[in-house]
C-alpha cells in the first residue's frame, strides 16, 4: 500500500522556511539528476563535433574502406579497419576463454555448489573482478607472454594471444555472476518437476535451467564482450602497436583503445589531424559498445518476460 506525503494546503503548517524547502528541494534534485543526461549528451556531442572536423579532412569512405591505418607516419592512411580488426580479435579471443569457463562456473554456483562453498567462491570472484586492469596488463606482459613463448617459440613479445587470454580472465567473473543470476531466477518448480521425473543434476542444469535462462545468459555474454571491446590497459601493454589485417594471434596488433592511448601519450596540438583521429576512433568504439549494450538490454528484458 502506497501512502503519500501530506499535501500542502493554505492552512498547513508548512509555512516559511520548511515550506520553501519542501517546494525547492525536488527542483534542485531534478536539476542534479539531469547531470547524467548532460554527461551522455556531452559524450555524444564531443565525439560527433570532433569527428566532423576529422571527416572534413578525411572522407568517411576512406575511413571505412582503406585497409591501412598509419596516421602517424609520413604517408598517411586513415582506414579504421585494422584497429576494428584488432579489437574484434581480442574480443573474440576473450570470448573463447571466458564463455566456457564463465558458464561452467555459473552452472556450478547455481546448481551444484553447497552453500558453504558458494560463500567462499563468490567473494573470491568479486576480488578477481575488482583487480585493476593495469595489474592484468602487467600480468599479461610479464607472466602470460613468457609462458606462451614456451609453447609458441615464434610468438612476438607483444601479441594478440596473451592480451586475449587475460582480457578473457578479466571478464570471466562478470559472465559467471550475471549468468548465475539468470539461472537462479529460473523458478525452482521447473527444477523440482525435472527431479521428480528422475533427472540427474546435469540433466536439470543442461536441459531445464540452461534453456530457460538462455536469453539472460546471452545478455550477460554480450555485456561482457562490450566490456572486452572497451578494455584499454591490457591491450595497450600486451598486444602491441601494429595495426594490421593479418588476423594472426601470435603477431602484434593494435586495438582502437590502444591507439587512443598511444596518441594521447604524445603531446598532440589541438586541432591537428592526430588529435582529431582519437575522437573519430573513440566515436567508432562508442558506437560499437553502445549497440552491444542496447542489444544486451533488449535480450535481458525479453528474458524477464519469459521468466514471468
Amino acid at each position, binding site marked *: 500500500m502506497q501512502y503519500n*506525503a*501530506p499535501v500542502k494546503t493554505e492552512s498547513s503548517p508548512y509555512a516559511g522556511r*520548511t515550506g520553501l524547502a*519542501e517546494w525547492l528541494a*525536488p527542483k534542485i*534534485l*531534478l536539476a*542534479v*539528476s539531469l*547531470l*547524467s*543526461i548532460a*554527461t*551522455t549528451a556531452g*559524450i555524444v556531442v564531443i*565525439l560527433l563535433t570532433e569527428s566532423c572536423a576529422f571527416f572534413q579532412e578525411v572522407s568517411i569512405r576512406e575511413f571505412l574502406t582503406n585497409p591501412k591505418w598509419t596516421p602517424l607516419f609520413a604517408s598517411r592512411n586513415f582506414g579504421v579497419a585494422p584497429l576494428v580488426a584488432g579489437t574484434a580479435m581480442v574480443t573474440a579471443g576473450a570470448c573463447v576463454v571466458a564463455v566456457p*569457463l*564463465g*558458464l*561452467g*562456473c555459473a*552452472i*556450478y554456483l547455481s546448481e*551444484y555448489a553447497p552453500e558453504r562453498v558458494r560463500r567462499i*567462491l563468490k567473494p573470491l*570472484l568479486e576480488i*578477481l573482478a*575488482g583487480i*585493476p*586492469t*593495469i*595489474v592484468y*596488463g*602487467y600480468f599479461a*606482459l*610479464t*607472466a602470460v607472454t613468457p609462458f606462451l613463448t614456451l609453447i609458441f617459440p615464434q610468438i612476438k613479445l607483444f601479441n594478440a594471444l596473451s592480451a586475449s587470454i587475460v582480457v578473457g*580472465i578479466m571478464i*570471466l*567473473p562478470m559472465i*559467471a555472476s550475471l549468468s548465475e543470476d539468470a539461472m537462479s531466477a529460473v523458478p525452482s518448480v521447473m527444477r523440482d518437476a525435472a527431479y521428480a521425473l528422475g533427472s*540427474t543434476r546435469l540433466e536439470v542444469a543442461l536441459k531445464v535451467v540452461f534453456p530457460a535462462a538462455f536469453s539472460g545468459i546471452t545478455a550477460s555474454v554480450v555485456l561482457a564482450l*562490450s*566490456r572486452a*571491446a*572497451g*578494455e*584499454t*590497459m591490457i591491450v*595497450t601493454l600486451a598486444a602491441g602497436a601494429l595495426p594490421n589485417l593479418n588476423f594472426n594471434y601470435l603477431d602484434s596488433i593494435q586495438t582502437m*583503445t590502444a591507439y587512443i*592511448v598511444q596518441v*594521447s601519450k604524445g603531446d598532440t596540438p589541438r586541432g591537428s589531424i592526430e588529435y582529431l583521429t*582519437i575522437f573519430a576512433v*573513440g566515436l567508432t*568504439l*562508442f558506437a560499437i*559498445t*553502445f549497440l552491444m549494450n542496447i542489444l544486451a*538490454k533488449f535480450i535481458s528484458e525479453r528474458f524477464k518476460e519469459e521468466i514471468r
Partner: protein
Amino acid sequence: MITGEALRRRVIRRKRRDAVFHGIFLMCALAGVAVLFILLLDVVKKSAGWLDIGFITSFDSRKFEEAGMAAGIVGSLCLIAIAAPLSFVLGVATAVYLEEFAKPGRINWLIQTNISNLAGVPSIVYGLLGLAIFVRYLGFGRSVLSGGLTLTLLILPIVIVASREAIRAVPAGLRHASYALGAGKWTTVLRVVLPSALPGMLTGSILAVSRALGETAPILIVGAVTYTAKLPQSLFDSFTAMPIQIYNWTGLPKEEFRHVAAAGIVVLMIVLLSVNALAIMLRNKYSGKR
C-alpha cells in the same frame, strides 16, 4: 522393451556423467580462483626486495634503485579527494530524486535509461570527454582538477545505483511514521530516509572510490604525467597517480623496472584491499541493526 539390467546400466551411466560434469564445472569455478592466486603470488614474488619505506616516500627516478611512488600516492589521494565527495553528493541527490520524487514519465525513463547506459560506456571514452571538456574547453589544462572531475563522472553511475538500492531498503514504516507526525516529503527524506540509508550509500561510494583508484586509461588520456618529481600544489598543477606510474614502469625497457612495477602493484593492491575492507566493515556493522 527395456530389461531391468539395461535400465540399471543406463542409470549408472547417467549418474557417472553427472559426476564427471560436476568435476568439470568445479574446475571452471576454480580456474578463476587459481588465476587470482597465481597473479597475486607472481606479483608479490617479483616485488620481493624492492618494496621498502624508501619506495613509498621517495619520488620517481630514472635509476631503478631510487624509483619511488610518493608522487603517485599523493596524486591518487588528490584525485579521490575531488572525485569522492563530488560523486557522493551528486549521486545521492540523483538517487533521492529517482526514488522519492520522480513520477513515472518520460524524463524519469530517460534519466534511468541514461544511467544504465553510462555504466556501460568504456572508461577511455570518459577520458576523451574529460580531455575535450575539462582540459580544453573549460581550460583547466592537464591538471589534477581535470583528472578528478573525469573520475567523478566515471563513478557517478555506480554511486547512483548503490544509493538507490540503499534508499529502497529503508523500511516503509519509518516513512509512514514520519508522515503521521505531519512531516513533509523533503523533511522525511532529510531526517528519516537519508540517515537510515547512509551506511548503504557510503558502502557503495567507497566501492566506487576503489574503482576510481585503479582506473588508468581515463586519467592517462586527460594527461596525467608519467614522470614527475614534485607534488601537486594547487588544483591546476600537473599530476601523476599510482596506476600511471605502474604503467610507466612496466613499459620501460630495463628489466629491473618490472620489479619496481611489481612493488607499485603491491602498494596499489594493499590500498584497494584496505578501502574494500572498510566498505565491508561498514556494511557488516550496520546491516544487523535494522
